């Protein structure tokens, strides 16, 4: 497609309790279905959206966290995570789900989509987008 735009979806809220995380994921899938250049950024409580071992039985909500692991199939290969937000919550990259994609240009090798970034890198990342959507 000729008019591909760079989209950054900024996810800043905890996965449950509000509808933001699920709505963002829906819009991400729509953007990817229209073959746009889609990237995700998780910061603030948004880092919990991709935390490992989510169990929603107690709150009777659908656990949609497995869907993030399908995004590699949608050619979403860049999932940025704020280093500061992880630090503030006592989390490390090992507390996050493994999110991967298969690199077509490298014999379909499985690679991690997670890129940890600091605040200066986040500013630069936002600067280079055509569209930034904050949830």
């Amino acid at each position: 497609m000729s008019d591909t735009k760079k989209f950054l979806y900024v996810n800043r809220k905890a996965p449950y309790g509000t509808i933001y995380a699920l709505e963002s994921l829906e819009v991400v899938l729509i953007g990817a279905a229209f073959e746009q250049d889609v990237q995700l950024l998780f910061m603030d409580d948004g880092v919990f959206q991709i935390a490992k071992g989510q169990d929603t039985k107690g709150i009777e909500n659908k656990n949609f966290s497995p869907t993030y692991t399908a995004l590699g199939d949608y050619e979403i290969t860049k999932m940025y995570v704020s280093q500061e937000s992880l630090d503030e919550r006592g989390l490390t990259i090992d507390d996050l789900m493994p999110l991967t994609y298969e690199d077509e240009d490298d014999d379909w090798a499985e690679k991690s989509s997670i890129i940890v970034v600091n605040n200066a890198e986040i500013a630069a990342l936002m600067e280079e987008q055509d569209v930034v959507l904050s949830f």
Partner: protein
Amino acid sequence: MATMTVNGKDYEVDEEGYLLDLSQWSKEVGEELAKSESVDMTESHWEVIDFLREYYDEYQIAPAVRVLTKAIGKKLGKEKGNSKYLYELFPYGPAKQACKIAGLPKPTGCI
């Protein structure tokens, strides 16, 4: 709320006929949904339906067509991993029709 009846049991469906509670799905319900879409189910059809249900179970979404064709090709063989094959089975759109028969919600981004 719309319902459909299979073997004397009522199932709730949305305004487009998609099953509301996917845990109620059975092969008989699938057959009935296929009838409403005028699709004659064969082994090849069920293969795609089973695949979709497994995909949903793992990722909690119905895949977009592009993702479906790629994944089918990987799992069931290259000759099946193309939209021609899938459209022959499900002429009104593999994602839309096959998801309906599989008891899944309409795929996100499907128009």
